[in-house]
Every structure is written in structure tokens, then in C-alpha cells.
């Protein structure tokens, strides 16, 4: 295939086009596609398209884009600008960074959000600098692994004392000792860290604190096994992936590119419901500790927010809400949304400083009492 000509070159040009558009296409997939075309002895363009979908495996949420590129390449139609799909009734956008490989991460996200900006949403990119709380976060990261909330896992580990006998080990030992059981071996279920899901409010009213919150989230992602971070505002955006970068400044910069709704309004109830409506996000919250960093200023209907928090409290292991307003010792929740949601929260606490937030997270594993 080194000096491809004719139809093969045309097919190869399509895979090249896909790569340029941010689809991950491996050489072995291209080969499978060509083999498939030969196999089907295509009688119509539909065969080629179906073979392409099956072998090149575009992610389902990008099917429309994939088809548009296919049409443009093989049928010569004009690539439509990527508007929201016609059937898309969801008023609140859900953005996710995991749809593509490492390289197209930024390009894709920024373009998509640019095309779908509405006047109601204030879109602005923002540079984030590392916070001054570096020392607090360093101490937090060091203390966290030992104090993460844990649950019993499925795997068995051999242990000095435990609930079960480790038959496999005992028989192996016995075989070394001419079939005599020398010692009783025990095992027990392994403990695993619970997932922590962090929702960061990036609306205008939280403007002062978003940087510190992101820095905290970065420290958390780096220090614990399973953490998921989302920002909520006028949109819901998953930023776990950019935050995995080791260097904090880089991670925050990458995250800030993904998030498109800095300092806009808040539609907390809708954002929380949007989270629950995506089954694979909702699955992340199951059995996890949910940490919401928000002042709870809901512009919309407070019942939507209360319903969402109630559902969260049922699927999550623990639901805690940290608001900067609680820094005041005489704090009582006054916003309608927070008042309605309060009965479903395990903890409604002070999120006024990174130190306080870190302290709350470190206390997650302690007794359930707030």
C-alpha cells in the first residue's frame, strides 16, 4: 500500500481527513476497512459507509460529524457547520472531554462551544494561575491517601487475620510439604477507595473562588485513586481529564480551555439534573462521596434543585455541600434552593477557604454525623 493509487488512495485520504478532524484512526483499522470493502464487493455507497462505521469505530456522540465528513469526501457535499443536532431538546449543554484522544482535546472542545454559543451564555476563556494555597494543598495531598473513605472490594487478599480461609495458598503450601497442612492461612476482602465526585460552581457569584477550587480539585485528582470533577454553571463540563496533568499550572490552563461558561449565570438545578440524566455520569456518583462547591444561588426554580439533590443523596454514599457563605458563624441557608435541598445533605459546611474544604474532605471517612 506504499504507493497507493486510484480508489485506495481515495479511501486513505478519507482516513487522513478523519485524523485531521480529531478522530483516532489506527492503521490496523484502516486495513480492516479496506479488507471489509473488498469483502462486501460494495454495490452501493451505503456498504462503504457501514463498513467504515464498523471498522473505524467513531464514538457514538460523533456519528453525525462522521457522516458529514463521509458525505463531503465521497459524495462531494459541503461540510455543514456543526450546529446542535435538530433533535436536541436539552437546553443545558453537557460537555465531555473524553470523546477524543489526547491531541484533539482542546481544538474540538473550543470549536464546538464556539459554534453553539448563545447570547444567554457568557463565554470567556480565562487563564488560571496556580493559587497561593500551594502549601495547604501539598499537606492535603500527603494526608489524603490514608484518610480516603473506603469500601469493601471484591478481591480477596491474604491477611494475617481475616474472615475466610485462603484455600489456594494452603493447598500450594501443602504441596510443598508432602501434602500436610502446616498452617492455617486466612484472607479477607480488600479495601478500595471510594470515588469522590466534585462539582464546582463556576458562575459569576463564585468568581473569586473558582481558581482555588480548581487547584483543590487538581490536588485531589492527583492524590486519590478515583476522582471525577465537573464544573457547573450554565453548562455541565467534565474536566477530570485535563486535571490529570501533573503540573498544576498546565492542568488548570487545560481545564480552563475546556470550560466555556466562566462567570455566567447559574442554573444549578438544571445542571445537577443534566448530570443525573446521563447514565454514565450518574453511574459515577453511585456509592461515591459527592462534594458540591457552590453558594447555592439558584436563579431558576428551587424545587428542581431540591429534587436533584434528593436523588443524589440516594445514589451517592455521602452528599456534602460546601458554601463560602457558611464562613460566617451565624450562617443559616437563606437561598431558596439551599433551604429546599438541606434535608438531603449529609453535611452543609464552610467552603470559604481551601483549608476548610480540605478539612471537610479529610473528614469524609470519619463518623457519618455531620
Amino acid at each position, binding site marked *: 500500500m506504499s504507493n497507493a493509487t486510484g480508489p485506495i488512495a481515495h479511501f486513505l485520504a478519507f482516513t487522513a481527513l478523519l485524523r485531521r478532524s480529531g478522530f483516532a484512526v489506527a492503521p490496523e483499522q484502516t486495513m480492516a476497512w479496506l479488507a471489509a470493502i473488498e*469483502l462486501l464487493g460494495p454495490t452501493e455507497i451505503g456498504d462503504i459507509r457501514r463498513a467504515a462505521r464498523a471498522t473505524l469505530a467513531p464514538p457514538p456522540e460523533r456519528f453525525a460529524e462522521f457522516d458529514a465528513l463521509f458525505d463531503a469526501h465521497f459524495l462531494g457535499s459541503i461540510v455543514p457547520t456543526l450546529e446542535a443536532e435538530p433533535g436536541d431538546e436539552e437546553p443545558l449543554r453537557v460537555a465531555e472531554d473524553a470523546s477524543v484522544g489526547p491531541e484533539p482535546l482542546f481544538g474540538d472542545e473550543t470549536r464546538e462551544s464556539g459554534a453553539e454559543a448563545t447570547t444567554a451564555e457568557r463565554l470567556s476563556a480565562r487563564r488560571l494561575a496556580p493559587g497561593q494555597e500551594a502549601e495547604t494543598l501539598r499537606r492535603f495531598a500527603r494526608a489524603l491517601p490514608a484518610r480516603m473513605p473506603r469500601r469493601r472490594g471484591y478481591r480477596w487478599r491474604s491477611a494475617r487475620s481475616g474472615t475466610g480461609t485462603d484455600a489456594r495458598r494452603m493447598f500450594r503450601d501443602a504441596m510443598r510439604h508432602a501434602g500436610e497442612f502446616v498452617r492455617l492461612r486466612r484472607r479477607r476482602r480488600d479495601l478500595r477507595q471510594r470515588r469522590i465526585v466534585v462539582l464546582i460552581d463556576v458562575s459569576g457569584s463564585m468568581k473569586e473562588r473558582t481558581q482555588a477550587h480548581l487547584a483543590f480539585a487538581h490536588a485531589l485528582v492527583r492524590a486519590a485513586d478515583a476522582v471525577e470533577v465537573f464544573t457547573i454553571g450554565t453548562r455541565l463540563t467534565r474536566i477530570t481529564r485535563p486535571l490529570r496533568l501533573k503540573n498544576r499550572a498546565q492542568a488548570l490552563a487545560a481545564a480552563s480551555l475546556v470550560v466555556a461558561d466562566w462567570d455566567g449565570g447559574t442554573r444549578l438545578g438544571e445542571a445537577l439534573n443534566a448530570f443525573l440524566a446521563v447514565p454514565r455520569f450518574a453511574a459515577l456518583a453511585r456509592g461515591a462521596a459527592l462534594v458540591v462547591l457552590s453558594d447555592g444561588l439558584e436563579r431558576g426554580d428551587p424545587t428542581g434543585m431540591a429534587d436533584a439533590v434528593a436523588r443524589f443523596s440516594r445514589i451517592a454514599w455521602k452528599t456534602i455541600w460546601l458554601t463560602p457563605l457558611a464562613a460566617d458563624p451565624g450562617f443559616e441557608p437563606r437561598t431558596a434552593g439551599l433551604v429546599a435541598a438541606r434535608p438531603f445533605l449529609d453535611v452543609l459546611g464552610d467552603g470559604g477557604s481551601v483549608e476548610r474544604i480540605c478539612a471537610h474532605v479529610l473528614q469524609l471517612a470519619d463518623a457519618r454525623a455531620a
Partner: protein
Amino acid sequence: MAVRHTIVGIGSPRELEAALRAAYYLADEELSTAAYLALALGKPLLLEGAPGVGKTEAAKAIAGVLGRTLLRLQCYEGIDAAGALYEWNFPRQMLALRQEGAYGGDIDIYRDEFLIERPMLACLRRPQETVLLIDEIDRSDHEFEAFLLEFLSDFQISIPERGTIRAYERPVVILTSNRTRELHEALRRRCVYHWIDYPTPDREMRIIMMRASGVSERTAHAVVAAVGRLRREPLAKLPGIAEAVEWAEAATLLNEQGTRWPDAFRRSLGVVLKDEDDLVHVAPRIDAILAEAQA
């Protein structure tokens, strides 16, 4: 790439579609193309889709069409090689050792009779008689996914005491995922991929008529319309195809026992929506939805 043009007499996606229909599975053109390509190219078939769209059913139907036994490996968090590949039968090895010890003989405790075969090993040893279904791969840990990657590229495994076991022919492997998490890119690209969506109303209706017994066409039509409407609601668990079939059957049963029509649907709503929150969410509008569906 070893390409086989025909597998048990099936030489094109259309022929596979017809064979699947005979096995009571209605596949659309996309699915039959993907499945045919997977069989012909000797690659694993990765089926993704929401719960209840018939991924596992598709695997069963394909195994049926090929006339092979389906080996199902259900994934779960913490699944390991002992559950997926093989395990030594320690108690039997022990007994054999003791017996031999008493009679002073020499025994090989790593013989076949001491090996407990798990689905993946069974599939490697009898690739022509089996279809391996690795179900809900998204539930397993990342470690298992990496281990699977190795298995799916070479179709061989090594047992330290026995050496390498290799399939003499590429086995048929089907993987399913509910997409609760993103699978590793390397796993996706080893497979032929198909995303199973909820069926079109027309196809769902034909599925109900084929799968359910004694359901009238009008009932099936109403169920399809109502279920289609429910799938647009923000529910925790969207009704799948199996739920639609059950609803049609349940409502028909209630109707035969004397419950009038819209009521028969409403009273059997529990087979479609299995979450209290969802029921509460839908309750104020269910009458309107049913009336619209029956129109």
C-alpha cells in the same frame, strides 16, 4: 489478515440478517454488516448501547446462527484471571498427591483433569464449537481490560505449569458494553464496532409482534408509541426493548382478564418503569402520554 468469505454458508450481510431473523432476532443493516465483517475478518465484535437494546440477545442469536455453544463471561468489578481463564483444582490435586504418596507412585498434578476451565480457556481450546461472549466489559477494572487486550490480539494464553495454549483458529468473540465508562482506545480499535441504538418505531413494533405471544397489532403500536415517548423523558432508567415486549404482554394479559384499555397500560406500568423516582416523575403526564399513544 485471514479473511473468510463465507461462514457456515453465510456470504454477505444480507444472508446473515436473514439467518438472524430466522433465529428471532431482527438486526438492522448496520448490525448485520458489522457482525458479518467481524466473522469474516476474524475480529472481535464490540457492541455498545444503552441497557436493554438487545446486545446480549444479539450475541445469543449469532451463536445460534453459527450453531455454536455460547460461553458467557459476565464481567464485574474485581474479575480476575481465575474467574475468566482457568484455575487449578487444588483439593483434587491434594487428594491425588496423598493417594500417590500412600502407594509410592509418581503423579503429574498438572494434568487436564486438575484444570478448571473458565470461558476464555474453553473458547481457545474449542474455537470451532464456541462463541465467547464477554458481557458488560465496562464493569471490569482497567487491569482486566488490559489483560483482555493481550488475549484478543493473539488468542493465546500461557499457563506457567503447562506452557502456551493457542487457538488453532480465530475464535468468534463478542464484547458488550453499557458505556458506563469509556473503554480503552486500544481495545476499541482491535474490534469491529457497532453502536446499537433504540430501534425505530417500525422495527420495535415488528420485534414486539415477533417476541410476544398473542399481542394484537393495535396494542403493540400503542406500546411502541408510549415507550418512544417515555424515552424522551429524563428518566433514571430508560425502558429497553425487553421492557416494551413485557409491557405489551402484561397489558394484554390484564385486558383479557377484564381491565379496560388505558387502565391495562397504566396498571402494568411497573414492568416498564422500575424506579420510584421515574414513576413519580411520569405520574402527572401518564394519562396524556397513553391517550396520545393510543390515538
